[in-house]
């Protein structure tokens, strides 16, 4: 029997991962790793996470078969794992509840977070309110403009939102600024990282907090007739994707497809497909695929989706891509928005634009495989935050707004 790929512990995933950070942060990462290793073995820790899942965020999330949408996907059976129905509207809550509990365990009183679309920032602000932690969220200035509603949500929840004006003014710069805060305030502060990237222990720890998605979905699919032929999820940093993939990693007959944001198309250079259009490098504390120039300077990513607009990707995805266990597809803005429109019109479900990239992957794969295929899509978030962007894209705003 081949070795299980599930829940690989890090710090390395093949050649990827590791800890490439300033010495000033090493003690904090060691402390976090130790605390997580202890918590992981403590039944009361996961009992508390399970309780919060049940009684606070609404787990298990349901699986919905989307019959009308499926007609546009070659007639394949299409099932959605409804992380959009979680409290705060996305899978991000799964991770932040775990990390906020861990923050309490290590006795820190302040959390910082980075956010792109605002979903992780909202989730962190929510967990901080629930657990009485001071919360500061770094967000690229460009993102604060395109996700103004989520900025207000974070403020309503008691968080301080710091618009980051350096560099590309998006998620990458928000992470840089969060690191700078952490270096200066590590005594009191824990960094609640939003995706399965960054230095060890984050890629493995965030994956572990998100793997509930795949554990539930695998059981739900078996109860509804059997394992799917493929599991699809959008990939920015890749936490929702690794969360749903993990439970299926050892089911070799199940294809795993990560849908990266191709923006205007990978060939145009204006995209956010780190695996599809980048090469191995070190960014934000770990080795993985990175969009970069010949000198290793990070290049700007482009996507209509703020949550996928990131030039890196989690190291476990880089490893799964190199192993050939998962495929990574490039989905353009146009393809994602068409899938977004279709799900709204055929099912009455407004997806996050991020998740619409996975829906576009399902349309393509369904057309390839036809009606005998069964596809499971992680609907990682809902689209309320995207109403204005989508309305602008489809030219539905009154003139004064466009």
């Amino acid at each position, binding site marked *: 029997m081949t070795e299980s790929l599930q829940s690989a512990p890090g710090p390395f995933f093949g050649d990827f991962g*590791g*800890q*490439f*950070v*300033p*010495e*000033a*942060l*090493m*003690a*904090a990462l*060691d402390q976090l790793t130790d605390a997580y290793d202890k918590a992981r073995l403590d039944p009361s820790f996961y009992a508390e996470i399970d309780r919060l899942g049940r009684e606070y965020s609404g787990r298990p999330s349901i699986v919905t078969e989307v019959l009308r949408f499926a007609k546009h996907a070659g007639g394949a059976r299409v099932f959605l794992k409804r992380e959009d129905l979680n409290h705060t509207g996305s899978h991000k809550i799964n991770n932040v509840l775990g990390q906020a509990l861990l923050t309490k365990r290590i006795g820190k009183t302040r959390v910082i977070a980075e956010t792109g679309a605002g979903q992780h920032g909202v989730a962190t602000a929510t967990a901080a309110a629930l657990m009485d932690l001071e919360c500061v969220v770094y967000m690229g200035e460009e993102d604060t403009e395109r996700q103004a509603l989520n900025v207000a949500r974070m403020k309503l929840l008691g968080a301080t939102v710091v618009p980051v004006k*350096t*560099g590309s003014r998006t998620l*990458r710069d928000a992470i*840089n600024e969060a*690191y*700078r805060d952490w*270096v*200066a*305030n*590590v*005594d009191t502060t824990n960094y609640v990282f939003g995706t399965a990237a960054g230095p060890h222990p984050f890629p493995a720890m965030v994956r572990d907090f998100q793997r509930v998605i795949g554990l539930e979905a695998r059981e739900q699919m078996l109860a509804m007739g059997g394992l799917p032929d493929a599991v699809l999820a959008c990939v920015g940093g890749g936490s929702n994707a690794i969360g749903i993939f993990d439970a299926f990693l050892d089911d070799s007959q199940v294809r795993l497809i990560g849908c990266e944001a191709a923006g205007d198309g990978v060939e145009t250079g204006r995209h956010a497909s780190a695996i599809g259009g980048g090469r191995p*490098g*070190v*960014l*934000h*504390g770990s080795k993985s695929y*990175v969009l*970069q120039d*010949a*000198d*290793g*300077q*990070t290049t700007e990513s482009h996507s209509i989706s703020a949550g996928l607009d990131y030039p890196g990707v989690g190291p476990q995805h880089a490893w799964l891509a190199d192993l050939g266990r998962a495929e990574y597809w490039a989905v353009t803005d146009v393809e994602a928005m068409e899938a977004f429109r279709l799900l709204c019109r055929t099912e009455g479900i407004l997806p996050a634009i991020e998740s619409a990239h996975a829906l576009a992957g399902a349309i393509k794969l369904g057309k390839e495989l036809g009606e005998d295929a069964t596809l499971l899509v992680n609907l990682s978030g809902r689209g309320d935050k995207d109403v204005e962007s989508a309305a602008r894209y489809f030219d539905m705003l009154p003139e004064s707004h466009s």
Partner: protein
Amino acid sequence: MSALTDRLDEIKAEGRAALIGYLPVGYPSVEGSIEAMEVMVEAGVDIVEIGLPYSDPVLDGPVIQFAAEQALANGTRIADVFPAATAVAATGAPALVMSYFNPMLQYGVDRFAQDLRSAGGVGVITPDLTPDSGAEWIAAADAHGLDKIFLVAPSSTTERLHLTVNATTGFVYAASLMGVTGERATVGDAAESLVRNTRAAGAPRVCVGLGVTTGAHAAQVARYADGVIVGSALVRCLTENESLDAGLAALRVKVQELAAGVRAVRVRGETL
């Protein structure tokens, strides 16, 4: 032993601490930055730390971020660091490079070490690479005879101080405070005890950086460290003056102030 340690030991024999000055290559231009490095040496900097601009400098504050961003926007390349090292070496001052890891990795860690050595550089400071993650770099630096300067911080545990001291050659870079580069009103209280603990872990030479801004700061740090590292306060001389000439004049005055600082107090020798 190396050209760097020889120089540090000569300076110690003069009864003072070394002044180590940082400037990023490529700001305001490659030529302008090299001229500024030469001016620093003329005005009293003993060792030059040449910054290689990087797009995601997580350990740098606003002044150095700004200069690095401008340098990259002006088209500065990795290869520009080598003529800068040659020019610094020609002044007689040891030339160090400070670089985040990814540019070195993409250039090829071994090739980077070889080209820097050929250009006259003597070592590299790696702000986001610790010895635990640095095997490839350590092998390349050793193969080409470059000093590997790793950092310690006030948060470093005793175990990590030993790990870092054992892997470091040249000098250990002690970060005076928990934070990023930038000017401060005072030098952190943590610096002196960190230097003491780093020496206790076996480091023969420890230099202090982060936040050193004035001649008085330099004099204070010179009492207990082998070298005083100044970055943002020097870079600001260039960023806040419109013309390069005015910037160089301000730089000269600032270096003279700092050079007087490291000479103000005689080091008490090995008793620390």
